[in-house]
């Protein structure tokens, strides 16, 4: 597709379960970002990939959160032992990765609900 694709769009899980959220960026975009957004708040930075490597993972809240981008395209955000406080919209964005941070292209998000 032409835009950033995120799956699933909605995920309901139980406390303590493992969750994977997938992001398929725009073809050719080398930079990929994960953000988390709680209701009524702005997006909060989690992690940034340049190619296959995590260039900045300073926003990951704790070691239950992990993200990979093994081939420099699709990325997966993994959350272990989910907690109710993990409930939020998880947004993925990509950009060309050239120069400074230019325009980010966002997906529609994955809404995670932990019961």
């Amino acid at each position, binding site marked *: 597709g032409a835009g*950033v694709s995120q799956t699933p769009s909605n995920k309901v899980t139980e406390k303590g379960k493992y969750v994977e959220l997938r992001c398929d960026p725009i073809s050719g975009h080398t*930079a990929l*970002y994960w*953000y988390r957004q709680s209701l009524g*708040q*702005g*997006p*909060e*930075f989690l992690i*940034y990939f*340049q190619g296959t490597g995590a*260039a*900045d993972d300073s926003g990951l809240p704790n070691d239950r959160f992990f993200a990979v981008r093994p081939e420099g395209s699709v990325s997966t955000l993994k959350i272990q032992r989910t907690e109710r406080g993990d409930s939020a*919209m998880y*947004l993925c*964005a990509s950009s060309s990765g050239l120069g*400074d*941070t*230019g*325009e*980010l*292209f*966002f*997906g*529609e*998000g994955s*809404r995670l609900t932990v019961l």
Partner: protein
Amino acid sequence: SQQGEEDPQALSIQEGENATMNCSYKTSINNLQWYRQNSGRGLVHLILIRSNEREKHSGRLRVTLDTSKKSSSLLITASRAADTASYFCATEYQGAQKLVFGQGTRLTINP
């Protein structure tokens, strides 16, 4: 943490009026961007202004940047009901290659 603070948090105006939203930030930046988000959807990029620019226009949008005051404003002229959304400023501060978003302004345009 979120670098930007936006003012007001919510704004409700009549269709046809102008809407002004403000953003303040804390440290030196490379660029500042504005995004729009319809309820429950992803964000859409509106405009980018670099630290050496003072004003930029795009259609009905006008953005100003005052680096001495560490602030920016977004003006939407001749507002339409379809402009109803949340608007976020985002900054790329020097030394980082990521955007830090503010809390947003929720804009409601009444027909």
